[in-house]
């Protein structure tokens, strides 16, 4: 079909060009940049393995990596538990079901920048809403974003809040696939509500849980706007994220080569972590 070949190639050509320029070239050039020192103004200089060596010894970078793991250690379990709980609550004939669902999903559609600004104000030590409520109940206000120990957890809680609706939808979809006869069979077999959850629901939701973990992890490694707006990376660099560091190196320090190196390192870290996660969770099939 010569005509088909021609039309097809013609129609697919713009995208092919796009991919070459905006996908292929950047990946390749990123790998090249790793070996350069460049400030965008003067000519790039060959830097050999300097960038990589610097990165390996860069305390700030590894602090950022550490921060991300702190973030994930709070965010992941919180995310899974809350999304699962809400999905289970919604998975039944309910009045106003679409209203609840819409309410939970609302923060997902709102810009991350807005959410960050909003929660900056909610977490504000003196005039924030949260501390205001705490004081009302008689508790002491907490310096959420200025205490190095609470800052990252506070951000983790906020990100959980923002994204939970998204994962509720994912879990709801998974719950639909559990056959009714299985649920009834296990009831007749003698399962309590908890046993039904543990032996039937949770194992059958494994694919969804893997998805939640993977997406949340990737999201966690890509954290930028939240620390940028809320804490600027502090206090004591405890909320400094990898992408924030990358951005600073590019925008403020004008160190393109180093920033690119951070980017490549990040991609590798994400790939490795996700790979390990899928292996580990995949094995935990039968509890």
């Amino acid at each position, binding site marked *: 079909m010569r005509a088909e070949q021609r039309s097809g190639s013609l129609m697919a050509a713009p995208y092919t060009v796009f991919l070459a320029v905006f996908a292929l070239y950047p990946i390749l050039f990123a790998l090249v940049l790793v070996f350069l020192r460049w400030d965008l103004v003067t000519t790039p200089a060959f830097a050999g393995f300097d960038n990589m060596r610097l990165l390996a010894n860069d305390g700030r970078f590894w602090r950022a990596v550490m921060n991300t793991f702190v973030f994930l250690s709070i965010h992941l379990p919180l995310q899974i538990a809350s999304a699962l709980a809400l999905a289970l609550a919604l998975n039944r004939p309910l009045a106003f079901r679409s209203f609840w669902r819409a309410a939970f999903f609302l923060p997902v559609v709102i810009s991350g920048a807005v959410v960050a600004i909003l929660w900056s104000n909610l977490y504000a030590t003196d005039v924030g809403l949260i501390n205001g409520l705490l004081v009302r109940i008689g508790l002491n206000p907490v310096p959420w974003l200025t205490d190095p120990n609470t800052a990252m957890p506070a951000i983790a809680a906020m990100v959980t809040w923002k994204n939970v609706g998204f994962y509720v939808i994912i879990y709801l979809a998974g719950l639909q696939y559990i*056959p009714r006869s*299985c649920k*009834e*069979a296990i009831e*007749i077999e*003698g399962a*309590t509500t908890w046993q039904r959850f543990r032996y039937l629901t949770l*194992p059958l939701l*494994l694919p969804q849980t893997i998805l939640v973990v993977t997406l949340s992890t990737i999201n966690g490694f890509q954290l930028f706007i939240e620390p940028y707006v809320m804490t600027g990376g502090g206090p004591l660099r405890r909320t400094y994220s990898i992408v924030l560091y990358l951005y600073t190196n590019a925008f403020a320090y004008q160190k393109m080569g180093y920033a690119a190196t951070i980017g490549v390192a990040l991609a590798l870290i994400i790939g490795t972590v996700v790979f390990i996660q899928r292996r580990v969770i995949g094995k935990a099939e039968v509890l």
Partner: protein
Amino acid sequence: MPSVHFEHVTKRFGATTVVEDFNLDVDEGELLVLVGGSGSGKTTILRMLAGLEEVTEGTIRIDQHDVTNLPPRDRDVAMVFQDYGLYPHMTVRENLSLGLRLRKVARTEIERRVAWAADMLRLEPLLDRKPKQLSGGQQQRVAMGRAMVREPLVFLFDEPLSNLDAGLRAQMRIEIGGLQRRLKTTTVYVTHDQVEAMTLGDRIVVLADGRIQQVGKPIDLYRTPVNRFVAGFVGTPPMNFVDGLITGDDGGVVFKAEGVHCALIPERTPQTMPSGPVTLGIRPEDMEVDVADTLIDTSPRDGLQGRVVLVERLGGTSHIHFDAGPNRLLAAVTNERLPEVGDAINVRLNRERAHLFVEDRRV
């Protein structure tokens, strides 16, 4: 002592009554079949017995205990579902043993029972496979094994053979029947297939619109159906019905309709015969067909006169579809010589086996 006891059980969904005043005793060790069309309430009754549906009114007792308000897990029943309900993420062995593991039965006992059920149902080679690796029939047997392993008071079957092809269905029917006879567990079995009901049931309950039409042994339902619904439901091919009148002509009691003239046996007709329209019921297998030599024969004959519409040769038996007056009827005969389409035929009835229905009730 009856093993399962339904007393005035009624089920309503909002304004609709799905099961109306259901009363039944299921004897210990019996295989009782609930049969009916969709909407007859049979599945609802089974699910109420299982505890999966709430009882709107009435009581259910299992082995003298009132279980009406108990959750399924406390009723000591086991159920086989239409789509088997096997746990897809567990092996066959785990499927079989889960119920016992949940109740913290000793491991040696679990192993013993699983081995026993696997042996009875020929599941040994399949024990480490997952349900999706099994055929329909194999999954069916695992579902039964799962029920057996619990050694419950009652087995419940919800149309377990509906998802199997015809050949497998016949085979599994025999297996289920044999199994139940060996285990002697009280069983309540729901199906829409009356052949299944007739071959499996010790007793059958025919349901329509949430009400019991008749309860009895298969042969009783066949020989003496209590109303037109049961008469038409039980038996393949289904009974023929002809609407007509009873007259006292010719010095005897006669049923007359267009193309039909049947002298009825006086002993079998009740003393007080209602005048007016009645319906004659006669099974295809209780009819004999002669090929008429000529149609121009107006003298009253005893039986039906008709014209053949279709002849189906099924081997030993043949089905002759014919028109007698406004009625399309079917005779099942074992004649060697069969009439052609368009032939005129005389059909004789076995008067011993004829039924009369007035307003849907048998008289």
